[in-house]
């Protein structure tokens, strides 16, 4: 890790990402996966399942992840590709999550980011919403919230 921190060449990013890929493959999770889009490994697509007992249960979300050459010094740029109705995610898929911004640390990796996002689905941070209506509904009208979630959601095949 130390060498990765000091060296930001693309080759090392690729190595690091390859290793992360291998780790994810060796301990696969059924609810979150990610895979690079092409040979240069800087663009990935991730898939997460909505956590059970949340409005998102049973839904599948695709995300795009883009890794800068400075990764893991800088966080990846993560966007929801699947339309989602969520207090901390805007309609373009942009995410408001501290670990993807100022709280990023080099010890995070793809799995931990995806895990954080998964838990964000179940526990939105309503104090700093991107989607105020959603934040409001989450607190006040869970049924309406659920309806809006389902209305907005599309399966990957529909995209």
């Amino acid at each position, binding site marked *: 890790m130390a060498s990765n921190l000091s060296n930001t060449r693309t080759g090392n990013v690729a190595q690091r990402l*390859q*290793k992360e*890929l*291998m780790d*994810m*493959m*060796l301990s*696969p999770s059924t609810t979150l*996966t*990610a*895979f*690079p*889009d*092409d*040979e240069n*490994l800087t663009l*990935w*697509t*991730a*898939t997460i399942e909505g956590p059970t007992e949340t409005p998102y249960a049973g839904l599948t979300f*695709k995300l795009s992840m883009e890794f800068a050459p400075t990764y893991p010094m800088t966080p990846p740029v993560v966007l929801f590709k699947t339309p989602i109705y969520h207090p901390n995610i805007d309609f373009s898929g942009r995410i408001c999550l501290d670990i993807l911004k100022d709280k990023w640390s080099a010890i995070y990796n793809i799995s931990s980011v995806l895990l954080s996002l998964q838990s964000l689905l179940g526990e939105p941070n309503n104090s700093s919403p991107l989607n105020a209506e959603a934040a409001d509904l989450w607190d006040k009208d869970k049924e309406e919230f659920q309806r809006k979630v389902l209305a907005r959601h599309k399966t*990957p095949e529909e995209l």
Partner: protein
Amino acid sequence: MTTSAMDHSHLIFSALFPVPSLSHTTPTPSATADLGFAQPGEPFEGSFVNNPAGQHRTARRNIAWSTATGFLALPKTTSDSDGGFRVHRPLKTQEVEEALRYLLVGEGKSGDAEGVKQEGLLEWYRDEVRLHFAGAVRPVVTELWEKPVSLQHAWDVLEETQRILQQDQDQCLRPFVEHIAPILTQSSFSSSMTFNANDDSQNGPEALYEQMQRDIHALFAYSIPERRFSQTLGYVLYDAGCNLFRLYIRQGKTSETGASEDTRAIRVRMTNLLQNLARVGLGGDTAQKACAHAMDKLMASFIESHFLKVDWYSKQSIVSQLQTWVENGFAPLVHLAMECLQCDLTDQETSELQQWQDMALGRLGRARVDNLFDFVINWAKSLGGILDIKEYLKLPDAKQYLVTHFSKQISRRLLHPGATTTYILNVYISVIRVFHELEPKGVLLERVARPIRRYLRERSDTARIIISSLLTDINDAQDTKFGPGSELSREIAREMQKPMTNLNQDADEDLNWNDMNWQPLPSDASLDYKKSKMDDVIWFLLTLWDRDDFITEMKTIFGEHLLKCQDPEYEKEIRLLELIKIRLGDDKLQACEVMLRDILDSKRINAAIRTNLTTVPPSTPNNPPPHTPPNFGPKTPQLRQTRSSTKHRTPAPTSVPGAAKPEITLSAQILSSNFWPTLRDDIFKIPTPISELQASYARQFEAIRGMRKLDWIPALGDTSVVLELEDRTVEVNATTFQASIIYAFQAQPGEEWAGSKGKGKSKSKAQGITRNVEQLEEMLQMDEGLVRQGLAFWVGKSVLRESHQDTFAVIENLSTLSSSNADDAAAAQEMAEAQAQAAASTVKSQTDLLKEKKGLYSQFIVGMLTNQGNMPIMKIGMMLKIAVPGGFPYGGEELKGLLGWMIEEGRLADLGGGVYGVRKA
């Protein structure tokens, strides 16, 4: 005005392009008074009316003209069919003499006095000769040449032509010499007056004669088809040369006898012919070219017939002989021919011999290069041929020729799927040796070897063959091991025997000022070419790959070899490792060193532990007591020596636990698992006595090596098995799984099934204990494939037979064996051997690895298809190659198999058209 202008232009025209039909006159009959001629284009009456002063002279000239032309006339038709003709020239009378004199040097020389050009006698005679030739000679010559000349008649045709032309030439020139020239000579002596400037006779009668002759030669030359003539002459010269050099290559015509007279006669005949041809003007450029062609071809034929034989016995170059022949045989002949053709030899005399020798060498060299591949295959014996090529390489362009052609030969004859890798390697080694002889600097070798090296790199078994050949001892290996289909290369093994050379060479030999044999690099070396420091064959083989790739491969094979190796000292292995360390640098070879140390340590520590155990009999593991423990049944596999490989973090010694069965000794090899390649790890139950031994060994080991745990690998290792059957004792060296299988046929106490069948020989003599495949799988917890392999092995040894489908019985008594069983045994043996080959590999093959990594790969595929959507198989393969660390070393077929398996597992769905997707839950 117009008239004179016309005249003038006409004169210019006719001076350039004489038109015989218009300007030439036939001799006027002497009885007819000729009133003169009008020049073409001139008003007919002009010469009479406008020139009254010349009237008298014209009349006189006409008379003289008539007399002279009548005298000098030549026949215009062939007088007889064979082309011979005689001219019956009238006697030269005084009148003729005067007429000639008048026309040649007198007033009537030419009629230009009045500004009108009249034809001179010389010009008339020239035309006369032309007409005579066209009428009398040409038909004959044309007849000779109008058809292609057959080879048999080439000599005759040429000689006949020459004879006719010679005759004609003589005939035409004689009047000139006899009658015209003397008058001119006289005149030029008697007066200093120059001949008319319009004439080309200003240089005197000799020049006139020469010009006359030139005209005649031109006539001759144009009457004969040039191409055909040159071909015929060329053939004639070639034929003469063949005869002179005793080359009997003409079809059908062999004249071995009386060769010496022949050659002399032929030499004379050729010389005469050439000289005579030169005399009639046919010795010019055409003939010289023909001569050159003939000589060129002659040289080719001679080299073909005399010098293409390689000196297989004394292995000498024949180039010096060839040079001598060129100098003493060929060059004189060429000189002779050239002299006969009256060529100017002076200017190239000095250098031409060298040129001819180079030409001859070039021919020889090219012929040799065309066979270079055969020389390479027969290297050492073919040294003579190679030395010839070495001489040839001194010529310019030779290297290019050699590289191009040899590369072609290689790609056609060597680098195809039909050639085994061993064969290619052997040829490559020969190539290295041959080119080392050809050019010690190695520039050529680098060029020609490039395609071979590229091809060898592509073959998957190359590294294995090289390394296992390096590890083979040529002295104790049987000949069969090096057969054509074998996987071992004798050449490599032999190279290995050679002492290491060149290992302490100077760092840079170009800076070694004391090297008196230093030579610059050949001019075709690339700028950054650097000759390898070590030029022995093994170096070339070891540098086929990138260092790292080779070391990876090397680790695998080396490990496998160490596990199989029987040599107690591991001498060769140590040597090989050192050798490779020198060449590849020792930093990357830690793993190999650790492996070697593991093995050596195991051996030593095995011995150490053995002495610790007092229960162990004094005999070494190699000489165990042959008898069976009494409590074993009649057919007891006795495991004499088990070499089990142990997977563990540290090497540690093991010894024979003697507690239960002191006769059985167990030696272990303790491997440091991190450094070894992936090993086979089929799991199965080993016979109880052995596992007890293992447990006791492990205890010992833990005591010695600070509680390190041993992890047994039952699949590796081998055993000596002694089977005591009713009528015989079978001693076999078997692998552990084979031994376990036959041990399973041991009657098991308390096993009902065995009891009912009858234990041992007492109850059922003919029928031994039977087991079926399923039972064995269950008893041994072994893979079915492995069980079947083991069974086939024992069937092959005539210990088991297949009594029913998948059911095997022990053959207690060979006499009960029917002949068909024997056939079965033979068949099974074959099968077992074939399988043994596959099974013998202690290190996992790619296929095994695919099976093992199936889970990981399928995870990648699922991850890929989940995130990237459905994909065609091609893309899946491509992405796997990119995404999987270490790559995905399999092709489409394997991938298809993998995907098929995943579909069976219910994880994927085949969406048709080669597109796959994740199956939705």
